[in-house]
């Protein structure tokens, strides 16, 4: 009891910052509305890019459009939520360049925890809604046979997908200590990773399967859980049962992320101020 109270007390500063950030975004109503609408449109246009392909063909990588909707929805919902809570780690190069990261060292809390809780982008909720709608449409129209198995896979896939994408943001942040101006390089696996996650992994070449199937485990965030839910056979190297291993991918993503973060933090020598 006392232990829980102590933990709650320790988390209080984080909650205070997050609540203030959330309030500040809603303070300017018109601006917040514009942000929500543009975030919604981002999701819609991304979905339209997939839909355009399906105006030409009936199946891609062994999946029909309604089945792809499930992959796209799972991936975009998980990514948008990770972006909402971790996306601002992308601002680290600005802190490094301005030397303002040093302030975070002065507080008695871990730097990563402070950075993660330093902001929350509520506008991404609109994009998450597009993902959720696509996922719902995919689930209801692609003839999923509902069973406890399918439900567990869906929840497991979503939670692990969120954690996997979050781990990618941490990994990217760790690398920023070395890249500085080359920050765009990490877009290859963060935003490129999101793009990969919405694709049917069955269309990938072998090198892509290695890179986005396993090293940056994007196939585990949406495609593999979706294949397992739909009862489809997976392609070579990515059998459907791997859908159950999504939590392992999340662990791997966080292990590489945290390792890289520690490595980067030790490399950092201060802003010289």
């Amino acid at each position, binding site marked *: 009891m006392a232990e829980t109270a102590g933990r709650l007390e320790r988390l209080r500063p984080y909650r205070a910052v997050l609540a203030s950030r959330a309030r500040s975004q809603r303070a300017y109503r018109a601006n917040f509305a514009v942000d929500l609408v543009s975030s919604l449109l981002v999701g819609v246009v991304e979905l339209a890019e997939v839909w355009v392909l399906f105006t030409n063909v009936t199946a891609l990588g062994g999946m029909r459009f309604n089945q792809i909707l499930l992959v796209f929805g799972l991936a975009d919902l998980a990514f948008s939520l990770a972006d909402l809570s971790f996306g601002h780690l992308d601002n680290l190069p600005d802190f490094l360049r301005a030397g303002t990261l040093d302030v975070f060292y002065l507080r008695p809390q871990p730097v990563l925890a402070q950075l993660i809780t330093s902001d929350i982008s509520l506008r991404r909720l609109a994009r998450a809604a597009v993902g959720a709608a696509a996922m719902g449409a995919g689930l209801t129209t692609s003839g999923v046979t509902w069973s406890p198995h399918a439900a567990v896979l869906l929840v497991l896939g979503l939670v692990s997908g969120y954690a996997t994408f979050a781990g990618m943001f941490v990994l990217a942040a760790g690398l920023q200590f070395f890249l500085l101006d080359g920050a765009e390089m990490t*877009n290859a696996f963060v935003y490129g990773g999101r793009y990969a996650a919405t694709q*049917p992994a069955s269309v990938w*070449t072998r090198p892509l399967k290695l890179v986005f199937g396993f090293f940056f485990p994007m196939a585990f965030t949406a495609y593999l859980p979706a294949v397992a839910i739909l009862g489809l056979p997976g392609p070579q190297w990515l059998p459907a049962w791997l859908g159950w291993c999504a939590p392992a991918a999340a662990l791997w993503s966080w292990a590489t992320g945290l390792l890289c973060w520690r490595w980067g933090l030790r490399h950092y020598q201060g802003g010289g101020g």
Partner: protein
Amino acid sequence: MRATARVYWRLLAAGFRRQSAYRLAALGGLVANLTFGLLKVAILFATVRAAGGELHGYDTASMSTYVWLSQGLLGSVNLNGRTDLALRVKDGQVAVDFLRPVDLQAATLATEAGMSLFALIPRGLPSVLLGALVVGMRLPSNPVFYLLGTVSLLLGIVISAATVYLVAVAGFWLVETRGLQILYMLASGFLGGLYVPLALFPGWLRAVAAATPFPSIMMDPIDVLSGLGGEAHAAGLVLAQLAWLAGVAAAGQALTRAGRRRLEVQGG
């Protein structure tokens, strides 16, 4: 007249040099370009194969040409809508730009074009070369397409800068242009044919795209450079680009003049 031309030439060269200072950034951009390119190849090749090996004039070799030319152009055309000028309009620093004895629009376009031209060296050419090496692609044998293609590419770069300029000067009325910037980002990428070639769009959506300047930024230079559709078609595309450039540039001039009278610099 010659003196005026020299000023803008120097601004262009300054933009070129300015971009050359960020070599690591260019490398980062190249890595991201190549990764996205390989993923685009995977999904678009699968689409062509699912359609029986040929889709609206594209086979895998010409689809590869499309992918790598579009990835190569990405560093040189502005598809995100962000500009320094937008920030300067927002905080009023643009008042200083108005004091200079140069035309605001021409000076901005010259600098942006210089930066874009430099980006072709570390980002554009390597994207196309590495794509050709790793995936293979088809390039036209007729030199006319390279000549027209170069003109079309330059026009695309300037049209892109001139269109983003419109977003920036809209700030004279809106102050905060972030919403407009995101709209530009979405429309220019999607309707400009960044992810899927416009030929694969359904007819009505192609018509929507054709009513905007966005295809002339990326899709037209790619079509001209890859020689799809023959010489007459390519020449027609270049003429259409010229018309878009004239239209967008005239709109920019008009908005700058009207906005200059609206500009209110706060503080003392």
